């Protein structure tokens, strides 16, 4: 049982709908939050950090991966 805030849930839902696909920060910003302007702050990283903290508990194999320089990916399989 994981407690998610609405925005975190939206993010997770989006990633699950596109599992195993590489999602860039720009895509996430635009599609999850309707934020088309590319900001300088690490918005996505911060949100993603929270989500990962809640979803990828300690001792479990992490599902959300950071692809360096590109974005994030939600892997369902090993």
């Amino acid at each position, binding site marked *: 049982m994981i407690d998610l*805030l*609405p*925005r975190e849930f939206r993010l997770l839902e989006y990633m699950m709908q596109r599992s195993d696909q590489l999602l860039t920060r720009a895509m996430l910003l635009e599609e999850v*939050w*309707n*934020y*088309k*302007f*590319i*900001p*300088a*702050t*690490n*918005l996505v990283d*911060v*949100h993603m*950090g*929270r989500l990962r903290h809640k979803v990828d508990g300690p001792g479990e194999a992490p599902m959300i991966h950071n692809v*360096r*320089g*590109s974005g994030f990916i939600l892997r369902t399989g090993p």
Partner: protein
Amino acid sequence: MRQPQFIRSTTFRWALAVAGVLAIFVIVLFGFIYWKTDSYLIERSDRMIARQLHYVAALPSVRQLDAIAQHLEQDSRSVQYAGLFGPDGRKITGNLEKFPSDLKMNDSVQSVSVLRTLPAGPQTRVIRAIAQRVSDGNALVIGREVDETREISHVVGQALALGLLPAFCLCLLAGAWLSMRARMRVEEVNQRVQRIIAGNLRERLPHRNVDEPFSKLAAIVNGMLDEMETMIHALAGVGNDIAHDLRTPLTRARLTLERGRTNATSLEQLQTVVDKAIANLDQSLSIITALLRLAEIENSRRSAAFGSVPLHEMLREVSDIYEPIAENKNVDLRIEIAHPLTVLGDRDLLFEAVANLVDNAVKFAPEGGKVDIELIRGDDNTIVRVTDSGSGITEQEREVVLRRFYRSEKMRSTPGVGLGLNLVAAIVKLHGFRLVIHSGPGGRMEIICPDPRPSRVAPATKT
């Protein structure tokens, strides 16, 4: 052929019209003077005649003949008439052959015509005369020629009319001269403007510091040229800024790649190098994208997508997004919504504007500070207010802060491109709202959305 040109000019036509009106007025005036003079002279003459008549009539009859004779003797110009006639109409004395037929007895002075014998021959004259029945039943007539007074009036009239012609010509000449002068000034201005168009922005229109319309116009145009020059220089400056800000990350990317190519030994090292290069390229791309967005907004291509935007919901979304970031800095992000309020606009654009303001606020707030997002009602407007407990914007910075690529010195180290406030300003302007930046301790920015006027036309539908 210059002549028809200046005759056709407005100034000349005006001068012609004025001259015409002047002429008519003068003629009417002179006519009036003529008539008045004429009346006065006749009236004066009439009074003299009447006085003479009463004088003679009052004399005893024996003295009357002498009086008449004396009266006629004193008449050097042969303008006086006098006559005494018996009850039967027979002439007793005087220079009138017979009693004028249409002369009424015991009445006022009238115009009658008499026959006068002159050396040149008999002539009919119109005179002013008065008759009275005296003692013994005689009829006494005293009269005076009217032509003489008419002559005086004629002379006066002529003299005045002679003055009219020069006045008229003078008016026309003045009109012609004014017209040519105006033409010359316009030509002068045209020359200057041509030089300005050709690129010499420094030129200004000449104007004497005289309080005349042309000079005022020149001053206004000069003001406009000053503004234009400032804007063009600003644009040129921005062009430089853009080029610089684009080039820096690209240069870094290139350097990184070059160095990596030479120095990297393992795949991992190469991957690191590539990551760094991509990051720098991303930065350049983001600048370009932002610029294109700005251009798009400023060209108002999005004004067709206006709809009803529930601000309260939008602000909650914005605060949702930035809450984690604020938390990381221990910044207390609070949102205060008095009532649910809606404005007319583009939801996405407004979202970006507010997000930008909040982004700035969170960035500028110190560790442990706070940021407030408020939605309140003013007098016939709706206000979105973002405040932060940072140091705020100084009075001087307020002006500059809206320029593209301006970044406050304090923020040079943080990532960012400096297009934020410029974007906000563009979006606010597109909506017809107002952006107010407060100076002084603490940052405070407000987007003021005036209520639409009741007679507003419905927004265009999406294309």
